[in-house]
């Protein structure tokens, strides 16, 4: 077990370094920084609601840009290793495949956390320069953005094993992301359908991640939380574990 964990740690550390040395990582962060500072314009138009608009726009940009990077990174994580034949070098050593996959997934989670942290610093610096304090529940909002990203990255990682290209993986995952925010609307649709369509829609909705649970950024400080913390933690754990197990099922069949 120690050997297994050591392999996970080594692969994760190496992959994380690979991620943040990637020029796209820097490009995404710079692009996010420019956009976050550009949100000043919208803030000025909001007059007395400037602080709220800068906070909301900045958090939304952080989420969308990290999402774009995470999906691209998850979609190409294994395929790039295969293309560059690096995977042969790794798997020819005594590295268990589950440890390899866990390490790659952990690196993706770490990269999104790192990107969010850098962007949060940029965002908070903008708020500070405009004379505003840290918005209420800011840390919670950023943490829950990360939780949403963990779920969608796990799903994209799994999709990348059967998808034919990076583009299709990103497309499928982005669709899941959108559907994940439509839970209430799906419930609304279910009340207006009946019979087989309702049963199919109902069953399908169970397999779509409910990202609204973690949408603290949208709920703000005033709205009540949609579920208890233990349920949310368990739900997150399930959404991390299950795609990983299915990825492993796909991965063990691959010949290298």
């Amino acid at each position: 077990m120690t050997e297994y964990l050591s392999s996970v740690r080594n692969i994760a550390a190496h992959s994380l370094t690979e991620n943040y040395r990637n020029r796209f990582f820097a490009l995404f962060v710079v692009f996010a920084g420019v956009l976050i500072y550009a949100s000043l314009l919208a803030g000025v138009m909001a007059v007395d609601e400037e602080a709220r608009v800068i906070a909301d726009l900045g958090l939304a940009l952080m989420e969308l840009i990290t999402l774009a990077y995470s999906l691209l990174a998850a979609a190409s994580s294994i395929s790039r290793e295969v293309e560059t034949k690096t995977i042969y070098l790794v798997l020819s050593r005594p590295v268990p495949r589950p440890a390899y996959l866990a390490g790659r997934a952990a690196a993706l989670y770490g990269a999104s956390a790192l990107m969010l942290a850098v962007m949060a610093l940029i965002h908070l610096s903008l708020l500070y320069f405009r004379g505003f304090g840290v918005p209420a529940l800011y840390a919670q909002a950023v943490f829950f953005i990360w939780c949403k990203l963990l779920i969608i990255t796990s799903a994209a990682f799994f999709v990348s094993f059967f998808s034919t290209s990076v583009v299709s993986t990103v497309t499928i995952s982005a669709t899941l992301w959108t559907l994940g925010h439509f839970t209430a609307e799906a419930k609304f649709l279910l009340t207006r359908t009946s019979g087989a369509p309702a049963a199919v829609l109902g069953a399908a909705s169970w397999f779509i991640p409910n990202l609204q649970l973690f949408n603290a950024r949208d709920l703000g400080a005033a709205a009540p939380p949609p579920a208890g913390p233990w349920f949310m933690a368990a739900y997150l754990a399930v959404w991390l574990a299950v795609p990983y197990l299915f990825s492993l099922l796909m991965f063990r069949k691959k010949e290298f």
Partner: protein
Amino acid sequence: MSIRNGGCFYPVLALPAAALLALAGQEAFTGAAHPFPPPSAIREVRRGASEDALALGLGLRRLAADLWFIRLMQYYGTEEPERSGEEAEEAVDPGHGEPGHHCAHEHFGEGRYPEFASLARHILALDPYFTNAGLYAAGSLAFNMNRPAEAVELLNEALLYRPKEWKYLTLLAAIGYSRASDPSGVLASIEPLLNEPDCPVMLRQLAAFLNKKAGRYRTAYLIYASMLTTTKDRFYLENARREMARLEGKPDLVEKVRSPG
């Protein structure tokens, strides 16, 4: 049961894992609360249905509400085409009817603005927790545009999601006094709101105006002075400075303000 290369252990786990996902998914789908109005409550305004759908799909209700609030303020700060011309010439206030002009006296913020109420309702349907938007819109409807019935309707809708929001209840009481032509009741009702740092500027403006009209020049002066630090809206700022300059000519005011208590 070797874990190297996946072994035979992991396929066995896949089935219960999928069952667990379905179970958690069902619980999350049916059990989790959704603290926002249903899609049927969101009425399309200005052909913005696709924009709203995008906001819902990306989980950006709050940001969408912010953008619609900016549009509402731009709309309210712009001259109405049908009010230009003769009506503007007859106005009592210099600059009345010019783009972005809000009159300084009884006519402050007046106008028909037919889209105002629907835009305000749209904002609160997207984000019912945007209290300042609700206060700003209801206050403008009730006190500036003389449409108290629509303001009350808007506040009642807002209270569905924030039933304990004292600021809404306070404003409702103020509207009630206003309808009963009781300006002192209005003033007493909105007074607690003035102590809030994020109190909408139009309510401060209203309080200052009513105090001035009632002859309480010192209180009016202090409220106008507070506007200088609590708003960035240049129309309100200019108006506050102008009113302060006027009030400074009133007897005893300057001395009282300089040595409070």
